[in-house]
């Protein structure tokens, strides 16, 4: 803690870099995953290919990707862009599956109703499918964001790592306090991201937070009952990659 208090400006600078390196890839990942999901969600072949590619990308270790990207796209090995691209790839790979699953989870009678009422396909995708996918997408985004915050620090061993640089320099200078400071700030950043996304998702999905039916005595309950507020167990199991 002493180190943190004594070096506040440096810590701030690294935190800002860390935020940039983790936030930008998360946003790119969300946008790419949504685009792919909405465009190809109901085309089985394209979807199978995307899913296969995504899980292959997901399998590549981050450190490996950080050092391989320069040889593929010709950036300098110390370019922060390598980290941004690598993490955006991971985020998109993680989230595209979430988007597919979320779109699949929309009740068929709702889609049926939308079609029968006269929604065009594109309109339905944006005004019906998309809002209904927000909750699971947000759960996935929380995992992606938190994982990114943690992964950015690995970049420090190739010189681009935001707060991860505190680990490298603390290790080299035999200064545990500095490493501890890095861990704490990274946890804080991750926590803040997690909460911000959770709160935003809650605000975007008021229909999931209205309590139970007022008078359930009349008629059978329907499949449109609210989704559980806590993430489904499958979401927990399906997510995450190496958090270095």
């Amino acid at each position, binding site marked *: 803690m002493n180190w943190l208090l004594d070096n506040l400006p440096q810590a701030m600078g690294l935190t800002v870099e860390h935020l940039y390196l983790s936030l930008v890839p998360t946003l790119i990942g969300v946008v790419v995953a949504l685009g792919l999901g909405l465009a190809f969600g109901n085309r089985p072949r394209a979807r199978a290919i995307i899913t296969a590619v995504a*899980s*292959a990308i997901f*399998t*590549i*270790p*981050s*450190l*490996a*990707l950080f*050092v*391989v990207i320069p*040889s593929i796209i010709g950036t300098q*090995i110390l370019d922060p862009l390598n980290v941004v691209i690598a993490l955006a790839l991971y985020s998109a790979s993680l989230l595209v599956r979430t988007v597919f699953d979320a779109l699949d989870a929309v009740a068929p009678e709702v889609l049926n109703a939308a079609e029968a009422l006269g929604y065009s396909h594109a309109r339905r995708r944006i005004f019906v499918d998309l809002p209904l996918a927000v909750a699971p997408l947000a759960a996935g985004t*929380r*995992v992606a964001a*938190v*994982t990114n*915050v*943690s992964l950015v*620090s*690995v970049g*420090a*061993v*190739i010189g681009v790592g935001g*707060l*991860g640089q*505190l*680990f*490298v320099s*603390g*290790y080299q200078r*035999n*200064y*545990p306090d500095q*490493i*501890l400071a*890095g*861990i704490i700030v*990274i*946890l804080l950043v*991750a*926590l803040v991201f*997690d909460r911000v996304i959770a709160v935003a998702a809650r605000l975007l999905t008021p229909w999931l937070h209205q309590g139970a039916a007022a008078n359930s005595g009349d008629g059978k309950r329907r499949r449109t009952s609210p989704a559980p507020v*806590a*993430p489904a*167990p*499958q979401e*927990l*199991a*399906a*997510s*995450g*990659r*190496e*958090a*270095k």
Partner: protein
Amino acid sequence: MINEMLAYFAQGANWAGETGIPARLGEHLWYSFLAVAAAAVLAFPVGVFIGHTGVGKVYLVSASNVLRALPSLGIMTLLVLLMGIGLLPPLAALVLIAIPPILAGVYAGVANVDPEVVDAARAIGMKDSRIILQVELPLALPLILGGMRGAILQVVATATIAAYVNLGGLGRYIFDGLALYDYGQVLVGAVLVTALALVLDGLLALLVKAVSPARRAIAR
């Protein structure tokens, strides 16, 4: 860079001895195995307990997210400074990242078992320990293995950083290459780790698939 990498692979000397590719691969797998085994021993009972009783499931997400946010590089370097160089610091860091997926898989697997099936088991006179062993765990197997698969992949990928604190494994090539500006050698490490991860992932996917039909047959 790619030519240098191919040249490295082509040279017979790089495949022999204690620092050869097979030896590094063996080290990498050994670290990974130790970490996953330790994490499974820790996470399994907790996952079964939460899945079976429902107690503490609201904290599961937060706890998993905190563990996920823990930077392994930081944990590892901190532990090395506090305990000295050895197998324990990287192992501890790897165990920490292996816990969330295993925990989530076991919990989800057990919690997802159709409550009616559990009810029926109880109705025919099974006690809780028997329900867990004979009903819930067999039905949970695909999700448990799914969680193990996630953990193994993450650990294999992350084990590369053990080399940062002077241990072996495939990360050696990356860190040695970076230190020598020998990017061909860096690429050797990256390609080997990726290949290992892809092969393991494929094998594990087959395994998960192999046990899934059994579950479906039982569940219906």
